[in-house]
C-alpha cells in the first residue's frame, strides 16, 4: 500500500514529491519572467536622474524619489491642451463605451440565452465566429463607414463600435445559460412580468459576476485606447496618447515616461484585483460547446 500524503488536512492523491518540486521550480522561473519586467518599470519610475543614467545600469533603485511623477505632471501641464482634457477624454470614452456595451450586450445575451426565438442559434454562431478575428481586419472598412456616418474626429467613433463588442455578450450569455434556471423565469412570467421586467428584475441581479466581467473587459480595452486613426484633433486625444507623446520625447524623459506607464498600468491592475473572484466565476462557464 502506497503511503498517503496529506496537505491542508486532505489526502493528496497521485502526487509525487519530485513532481511537486519540478512544478514549483517551473512556477518560480516563469513567475520571475512575468514579474521582473513589471518590477523594473516601477523601479525606473522611482529612480533619480543619476541612477537612471548610471553605467552599468542597476536593476533596483537606491534612493527612490517621486520626482519623475511631478516631472510628468509638469510636462503634461505644459502642453497646450490641458492635462485634465486628456483625462476627461479617456474617462468619457471608457465610461460611455462600457455603459453602452453592458446595456446592449446583456439585453441581447438574455434574449439569446432565455427566449427560444427562431434564429437564435444563427445569431450566436455569428457571435462565436466574431471572436475568431481581430479588429485589425475591420479597421479599414470601419474607417469608411465612420466617414460616411460623419463620425470622424468624434469620440463616438471609438465609443459606438465598442457597444457592439461581442466578447462581453459571449461571456454573459454563457454565464446566463449555466446560472439562471428557466423555472425561475417561468414563474416570473406566469406572475405577469413582461420580458423586459423579467430581464431587469430577475435575471440581471443573478448575473452580477458576468456584468462585472463585461465591465472589466470593456474597461481594459477602452482605457488603453491610444492614438486612433479616427481622431485627429489634439483636444480629443486620450491619456494613453499623451503619455505616449512624452515617451516619444526621447531619452531625457525616460523617468517621466516610466512614471506615466506606472500610472496607466495601476488602474487596470487595481480593478482586476478587486474583481478577480467575480471574473473567475464568470470564466467558469466561458467554454465553447462543439
Amino acid at each position, binding site marked *: 500500500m502506497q503511503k498517503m500524503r496529506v496537505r491542508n488536512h486532505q489526502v493528496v492523491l497521485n502526487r509525487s514529491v519530485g513532481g511537486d518540486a519540478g512544478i514549483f521550480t517551473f512556477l518560480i522561473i516563469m513567475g520571475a519572467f*512575468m514579474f521582473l519586467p513589471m518590477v523594473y518599470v516601477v523601479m525606473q519610475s522611482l529612480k533619480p536622474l543619476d541612477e537612471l543614467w548610471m553605467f*552599468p545600469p542597476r536593476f533596483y533603485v537606491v534612493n527612490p524619489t517621486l520626482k519623475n511623477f511631478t516631472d510628468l505632471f509638469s510636462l503634461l501641464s505644459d502642453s497646450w491642451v490641458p492635462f485634465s482634457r486628456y483625462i476627461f477624454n479617456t474617462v468619457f470614452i471608457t465610461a460611455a463605451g462600457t455603459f453602452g456595451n453592458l446595456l446592449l450586450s446583456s439585453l*441581447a445575451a438574455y434574449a439569446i440565452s432565455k*427566449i427560444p426565438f427562431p434564429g437564435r442559434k444563427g445569431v450566436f454562431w455569428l457571435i462565436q465566429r466574431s471572436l475568431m478575428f481581430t479588429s485589425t*481586419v475591420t479597421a479599414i472598412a*470601419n474607417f469608411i*463607414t465612420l466617414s460616411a456616418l460623419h463620425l470622424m474626429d468624434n469620440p463616438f467613433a471609438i465609443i459606438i463600435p465598442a457597444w457592439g463588442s461581442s466578447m462581453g455578450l459571449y461571456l454573459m450569455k454563457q454565464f446566463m445559460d449555466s446560472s439562471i434556471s428557466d423555472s425561475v423565469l417561468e414563474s416570473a412570467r406566469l406572475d405577469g412580468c413582461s420580458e423586459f421586467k423579467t430581464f431587469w428584475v430577475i435575471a440581471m441581479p443573478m448575473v452580477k459576476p458576468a456584468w462585472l466581467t463585461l465591465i472589466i473587459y470593456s474597461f481594459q480595452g477602452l482605457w488603453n485606447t491610444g492614438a486612433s486613426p479616427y481622431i485627429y484633433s489634439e483636444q480629443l486625444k486620450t491619456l*494613453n496618447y499623451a503619455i505616449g507623446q512624452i515617451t516619444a520625447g526621447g531619452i531625457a524623459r525616460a523617468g517621466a515616461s516610466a512614471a506615466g506607464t506606472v500610472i496607466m498600468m495601476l488602474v487596470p491592475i487595481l480593478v482586476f484585483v478587486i474583481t478577480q473572484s467575480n471574473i473567475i466565476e464568470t*470564466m467558469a462557464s466561458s467554454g465553447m460547446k462543439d
Partner: protein
Amino acid sequence: MKKQKDLKSKAVQQEQADALHDDSILETDAQGAAVKKKAVSRKDMTMLQWTWREIKRNKIAYVMIAPFMFVFILFTVFPVVLSLALSFTNFNMLEFKSDMFIWFDNYTRLFFQDEIFLLACKNTLIFAAVTGPVSYILSFLVAWFINELSPRIRAIVTLIFYAPSISGAVYLIWGVLFSNDGQGWVNGTLMKMNIISTPILWFYDEQYAMTLCIVVALWMSLGTAFLSFIAGLQTIDKSLFEAAAVDGIKNRWQELWHITLPMMRPQLMFGAVMSITGAFGFGGVVTALCGFPSVNYSCHTIMHCLEDYGNQRWEVGYASAIAFVLFLIMMVANTIVNKMLSKVGQ
C-alpha cells in the same frame, strides 16, 4: 366543478404544447388561450408556418437583440463583407474612378508580385505558429499547476501572470531593458561581464528582433484563455479524481489525460480561439518596439502591410484584399484547431 375540469384540460393542452417546443417555456394566459384555440400540433403545420408562429410568439426577443445586433453587424460583420467587395476594386479614397472593378488583380498582385507581402505572410505564420501554441500550453500548464494552491496564494499568482496582458503599454519596458545602447540593462550587464564589447542593437538587429518580439508577445499572452482555464479547473468535480485513484490512475499526468483534459474541453476550445486571435493580432507591439517598418522587414507582419496600404498609401482596395486574406487565415486556423481539440480525450 366545470371550471376545475376546464383548468385541467387546459393544463394538459399546455403540457402538450410545451412538449412541442425545443426549449419548453410557459406562455402567459393570453397566449395560452391562443394556443388552445389552434389545437396545436407541430405536425399539422408546415415548417414555415411553425417558424412564423414562433417568431410572432417571441417577437420581444428580436426587440431585445436589435440594438446590439445593429451595432455588431455594422462594425463587425459588414466590414468583412465590405472588405471582400472592395478587394475586387482599386478604390483609393482619393479619386473617384468609373472603372473600379479589377476583379482578382489585387489578389494576383498580392501572391505573385508583392514580395514584402509574402515575407509578411511568412513572418505572421512563424509568429502565430510559435506564440499561439506556446502561450496556449503555457496558460494551461500554469493554470493547472496553481490549481492546487490555496485560494489566497492562487489569487496572487494569477495576478502576477495575468497582469502583463492587461497593463496596456507596459511592454515598452522591454525596449528599455533591451535598449540598443550601453544604457540598456541587458547590454550594460553583458558589457560589464565582458561578454560583449559593443552594445547589441537587439530590436534593431535582424538576428534578434523576431525572437525578442516573440518573447514579449508570450510575456503578455496569458490573458483570457488563462483565466478561462483557471476557472474551468476549479469546476471539475473532485470526486472524479478520487474515483480515478481507486481505478488505478497512478500519477498526475494520467489524471490530466484521462480526466482533466476531457472535462475541460469547452474551456480548451474557447481558450484556443483566444490564443489564436491573440497570436495573429499583436502587430502594434512590433511597431512600438522595432519601429515601422522593422529593420529589413524582419518583423513585418500582415498587419503591417495592412497599415502601410490602408493608413499610409490609402490604397483601400488593395488593403481590403490584405484584410480579407488575414480574415481567412484566422478563420481557417481556428477551424482546424477546434476540429483537433474536439478529439481530445476521445
